[in-house]
């Protein structure tokens, strides 16, 4: 009996490994060893770790990306930043080798000498210069190596998604394994995530049905949510526009990069439709919580595909994925 007594509270805190296994949840060790190190060739990592390279690659293959305005490569350009920015009203500055959404500055409007952040806060030219200088020094890059800053056009996100995201652009994460989309979610910024779409910073993750592009349900800080905490919008009404194009765009990234286990981040622009924001060779595991479903059964299905099936055209692969992973 004494044994049962300490086991009970522990049961609420921990889940039995057998139950996780039955649900097909992919763990960190399995992801690293069975998927990332098996399907992702190290030589191709720079293509996704460096956003400038990703952008140029995507442009070569006619994959739409947010339009590049300028690249700041050296400190002396920082002093001249005024010249680059004076005509711009809205733009995004991001480190080329940043990870996890670090160091991204989104400016959506202008107020005299200042720019306006998505949260409404004003940013001066000096603050932007300091930010760019930090990016060049490698503050946000993997391993602290020197970096370049990218200035690109700010996305005007699609009308149908207004209300689902607070002070930030919602993006859609699709996990693509060997060219087949296997799972998707959208990340909605909240006030507590400070306009960022990172789940561990407090954004809402909403699992998206591969078949329909409709929301499954949302999670925030590990808890299930039905409405957006800031806007009160009913998450069940969420429908990603241009869903088929989103999936095809994501699936094509495999052909372009050669990476067999890929996280693709897509945004939907009001005028230009779905655009590739960035790629990730080490996509996180939180997508399983937003879908209430483990990745492993789907990944095992893909593991068994023959080489001929891997080389099918994009539209065909997307159709098969939607058929296999409909629920």
């Amino acid at each position, binding site marked *: 009996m004494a044994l049962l007594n300490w086991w009970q509270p522990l049961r*609420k*805190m*921990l*889940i*039995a*490994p057998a*139950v*996780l*296994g039955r*649900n097909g*949840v992919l*763990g*960190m*060790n*399995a992801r690293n*060893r*069975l998927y990332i190190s*098996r399907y992702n060739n190290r030589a191709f990592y720079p293509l996704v770790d460096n956003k400038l390279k990703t952008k140029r690659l995507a442009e070569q293959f006619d994959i739409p990306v947010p339009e590049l305005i300028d690249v700041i490569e050296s*400190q002396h350009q920082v002093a001249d930043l005024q010249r680059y920015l004076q005509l711009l009203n809205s733009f995004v500055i991001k480190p080329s080798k940043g990870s996890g959404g*670090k160091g991204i500055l989104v400016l959506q409007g202008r107020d005299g000498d200042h720019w306006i952040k998505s949260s409404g806060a004003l940013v001066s030219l000096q603050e932007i210069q*300091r930010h760019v*200088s*930090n990016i060049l*020094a*490698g*503050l946000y890059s993997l391993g*602290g190596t*020197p970096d370049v800053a990218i200035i690109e056009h700010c996305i005007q996100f699609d009308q149908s998604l207004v209300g689902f995201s607070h002070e930030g652009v919602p993006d859609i994460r699709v996990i693509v394994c060997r060219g087949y989309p296997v799972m998707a979610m959208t990340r909605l910024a909240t006030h507590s995530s400070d306009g960022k779409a990172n789940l561990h*910073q407090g954004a809402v993750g909403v699992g998206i049905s591969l078949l329909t592009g409709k929301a499954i349900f949302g999670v925030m800080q*590990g*808890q*299930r949510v039905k409405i957006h905490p800031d806007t009160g919008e009913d998450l069940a009404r969420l429908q990603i526009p241009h869903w088929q194009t989103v999936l095809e765009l994501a699936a094509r990234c495999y052909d372009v990069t050669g990476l067999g286990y890929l996280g693709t981040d897509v945004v939907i622009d009001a005028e230009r439709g779905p655009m590739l924001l960035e790629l990730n060779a080490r996509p996180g595991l939180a997508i*399983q*919580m937003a879908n*209430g*479903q*483990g990745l492993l059964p789907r990944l095992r299905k893909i593991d068994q595909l023959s080489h001929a099936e891997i080389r099918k055209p994009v539209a065909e692969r997307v159709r098969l994925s939607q058929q296999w992973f409909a629920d």
Partner: protein
Amino acid sequence: MIKRNLPYALLVLVLLAAGIGQILHRHWVFDVPLLPGESQSIWSVEAKLEFTAHGEPVRVRLATPDSQPGFMVLRDSGASPGYGLNFIQGEHSAAEWTKRSAEGRQVLFYRVDLLESDAHDLMTEKAPPIMQASWPEPYASAVAQVVKEAYSTSADHFSLTRELLKAFEAEPKAQHVQLLVSQYHDKLPGLLVNMLNMAGVPARVVYGLRLQDGRRQQLLEPYIRVWQGQSSQVFDVPLQQRNPALFDPDAPLLLWEQRGDPVIDVTGADNSQLRFSMIRKEESAFASVANRLSDQHELLNFSIHSLPVEEQAMFKTILLIPIGALVVCLLRVLVGIKTSGTFMPVLIALAFIQTSLITGLVGFLVVVATGLVIRSYLSRLNLLLVARISAVIITVIAIIGLFSVAAYKFGLTEGLKITFFPMIILSWTIERMSILWEEEGPREVVKQGGGSLLTAVLAFWAMNNPLIQHLTFNFIGVQLVVLALVLILGTYTGYRLLELRRFVDMETR
């Protein structure tokens, strides 16, 4: 799933078999015990004698230690390419190296293995003759007064010596003692012997070492041997310059030379320098006797123990690092603890071994916390990355210097041990924590910092465990077993303990 591949399984099996085989071989054939304490400790002490020769015939005589209370001499040997070497046995045992012509810097090694045992007495030696020394005034009267006071409060030679030493140790010192200390500071052992002679007590300066495991570059220290009739005792000399963080007054004392003869005598060369390294190992008494009888197993007995003692002492620490790495592997792969810098906790744990756990933890927290405060100011200066980290390194060194001095002033000699911390690693830790604080907030800093410290403490416990230290040093095979375990861990694809918590809601679909 990845197919179980044969070469990998074979590699792991071969490593395990070789490792366990080596352990058993050493255990059975060489009788090395698997548990510490089953055997007597053996101290290997190595003298490294350096001098500069000038092309003339060289003769070097080094006094060698004899069995004494606490130690029994098991075997000794010398290493010296190109030199003739003679061990002179008997009354005045010594090693004597000779060479017709030597040029430049020369290095000679002498090594002795000592069994911890109380079966022996000090070498019987007739009391030396009493010598009457004289001092100039005002020192003569100061000497006379100190001796008179000590004489009046004592009963025999030994208690007189204790009283005399007490006068020099007392704080504050009497005025006449202070006078003597300031004049004869460097020659205190000789002064004490002369003062004892003045009181009619035969005494001599002898030289010895405090044996502390893994010490290198040690110098002989003077002690005073005092006779009363046939019996004699050894006394410590007060007011010696010692690093209080390193010196352990309770360590066993080995008298290198018991009679008062010169320790080294070099002719035909100059600039001689004598330094000692020492290390403790476990061997059964039987094996040590067997080794003493024949050294022909040396080739089979391929181990760290065939290296010079100085290198062995280094390896004693180095061989523990794989244990720390294994702990990190376990915690990251099986538990999923986040640390700042993958193997930083191992280096911190190594520092903890030197400093002791509590001192180390306090020191680490103080340095990192102070560093974070200063780093938060640096981040406002908007410096370039490399300059900023360099500034943090300099700051960390300043902090460590400041705390050492402050701790010493307050009489906390423990505080001096803070210098054992790897400063570059600390600086990177501060830099990473600081960026983490700015980007993810203090919660993540506490999480990763706590994870690093927890890992460091667990690694420290593993590496500081006497059993593990005994096994890693005495059985090289342990390294192969650790390697095999790490290879096995590298293929683990199951869940981490913390993932069971992270995915706790996955059940209710």
